[in-house]
């Protein structure tokens, strides 16, 4: 990876980490803030309940006083005045508490201001009827009560208290609503903040592993690989020189033996010399194939647009030359162009066609079919034949170096062709696979990335 790109990945990573920290700070602040608001709201909620409670107390104080007054008017017994006396003490306290509690609320203060003279009037009225009972007797007191003055005042007080209850209930409702909204918003913020933060953290983790640590690990590996590659090159060079020289001597001198001393060798002697020569040539081919396979691993892939139809036709014509007398039905659809190394992709076709020609050699009505399928970002090409085929349980061995599924007596070859195909296709970023059935044929697929 070039340096600027690497730097930008690191910058991106830093920005992401900053974002994660920022998100968690914002989430914490918001959570803290809403906790404070919840606290405040709860305080005000309790406050409303207190006001409502006090209003109830006020009414009950006044009712208590009425009860005492009525008892006294009816009986004239001092004992009955007890609730009245107690209520007289409480009602002022209750009223003062209400004033304090609603000090911040103009509406409630206004109602209290309205109520204050009413309470005073109520207290005066109660006091009056009690005095009448004490000084003038039951009839006078009864006449006073019967004026209904006291009840009218009490009704007015009740009406004001009802208004105040409604006002406080509305406030309470608004506060409860606000609280649940804050709760919902807080929940959302914490949830999404955490999710986004977590996802970003994952992304940062990925970037660190994929690019930054990967880079650090890869560098020495790359050096190792380059060193190994150099050693491999030196090895191949020495193999191509040093291993071939003695083989040439074995074959050359065996030939001299046959040519110059043939008259002294019987048939068995000549057969043995023949075996030596065949094996030598075979080993020579193995070395050449191994070298070509190793070269493919090192060869530079020079990509350009390839006319696959033409290339495949050329490769087939070349492969068919090995069996000019044979009549093979060759069916090929127009193939889509692809980006690749022309020389290397030609070897892919050449190997597949050579195999197809070879493995249909014992078949009547040999047929080779070439086609393509396209899916997503890749193009798949296939070569299908109706030849000897293979057993699917050995499919994994098919693309290995020097792996053969047939004996040399059956079909000649060293077993490098498909290994080369696999190596070339993989170096293009593609993949290979095969399907087959013994006696019915085989299909070889290779997939290349679209341009």
């Amino acid at each position, binding site marked *: 990876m070039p340096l600027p790109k690497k730097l930008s990945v690191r910058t991106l990573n830093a920005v992401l980490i900053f974002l994660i920290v920022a998100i968690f700070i914002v989430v914490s602040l918001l959570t803290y803030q809403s906790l404070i608001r919840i606290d405040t709201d709860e305080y005000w909620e309790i406050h409303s309940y207190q006001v409502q409670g006090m209003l109830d107390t006020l009414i009950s104080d006044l009712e208590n006083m009425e009860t005492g007054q009525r008892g006294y008017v009816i009986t004239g017994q001092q004992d009955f005045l007890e609730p009245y006396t107690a209520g007289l003490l409480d009602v002022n306290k209750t009223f003062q508490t209400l004033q304090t509690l609603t000090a911040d609320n103009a509406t409630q203060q206004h109602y209290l201001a309205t109520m204050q003279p009413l309470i005073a009037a109520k207290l005066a009225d109660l006091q009056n009827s009690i005095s009448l009972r004490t000084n003038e007797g039951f009839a006078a007191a009864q006449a006073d009560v019967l004026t209904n003055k006291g009840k009218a005042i009490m009704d007015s007080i009740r009406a004001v208290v009802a208004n105040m209850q409604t006002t406080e209930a509305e406030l309470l409702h608004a506060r409860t609503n606000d609280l649940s909204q804050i709760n919902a918003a807080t929940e959302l913020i914490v949830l999404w903040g955490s999710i986004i933060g977590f996802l970003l953290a994952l992304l940062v983790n990925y970037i660190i592993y994929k690019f930054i640590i990967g880079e650090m690990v890869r560098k020495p590996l790359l050096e190792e690989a380059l060193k190994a590659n150099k050693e491999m090159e030196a090895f*191949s*060079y020495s193999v191509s*020189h040093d291993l071939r020289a003695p083989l*040439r*001597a074995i*074959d050359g001198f065996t030939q*001299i033996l046959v040519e110059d001393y043939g008259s002294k060798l019987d048939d068995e002697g000549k057969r043995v010399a023949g075996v030596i*020569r065949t094996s030598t*040539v075979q*080993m020579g081919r193995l070395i050449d194939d191994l070298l070509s396979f190793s070269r493919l691993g090192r060869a530079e892939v020079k990509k350009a647009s390839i006319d696959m139809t033409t290339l495949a036709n050329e490769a087939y014509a070349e492969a068919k030359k090995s069996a000019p007398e044979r009549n093979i039905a060759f069916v090929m659809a127009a193939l889509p162009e692809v980006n690749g190394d022309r020389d290397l992709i030609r070897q892919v076709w050449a190997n597949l066609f050579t195999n197809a020609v070879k493995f249909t050699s014992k078949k009547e009505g040999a047929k080779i079919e070439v086609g393509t399928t396209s899916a997503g970002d890749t193009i798949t090409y296939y070569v299908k034949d109706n030849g000897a085929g293979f057993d699917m349980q050995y499919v994994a061995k098919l693309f290995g170096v020097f792996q053969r599924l047939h004996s040399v007596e059956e079909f000649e070859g060293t077993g490098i062709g498909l290994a080369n195909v696999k190596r070339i296709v993989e170096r293009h970023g593609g993949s290979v696979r095969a399907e087959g059935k013994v006696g019915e044929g085989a299909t070889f697929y290779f997939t290349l990335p679209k341009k």
Partner: protein
Amino acid sequence: MENTANINEVDVLMVEDSPNDAELIARALSKINIANKIYWVKDGEEALEFVFSTGKYASRTASAPLKVILLDLKLPKVNGLEVLAKVKADERTKTVPMVVVTSSQEDRDLKEAYKLGANSYIVKPIDASSFVKALSEAGLYWLAINKPAIIK
């Protein structure tokens, strides 16, 4: 193989460190009856001494230039590509046809050899029949068919 040719009447200089290959090449060339015009040297240094008549070949006074030099690439002391470069860089010898005969089919050897002025490049076949055929045909071509430059 033994050198039997007169060093002043050599047509083919064979630069080859392997005695076995030298013998096989000589045998292939003997099929076209030029065995007595071949001279074999075993390394690059000896090849340069022969070509430029220096060192142990200081006494060589050739009446006619060499018709071809068969040159292996992997040689002791001075390697084949260095020999090629020196012979091709010298005015007196640069028209002598030089045929690389080697085991190497590495791209870089091929490219480098031609860049330095090699006239032909033959990869030694392992198969003996192909080997004999390749070398005898090459010998025939360079000795009988090819018309060399006239050097005064």
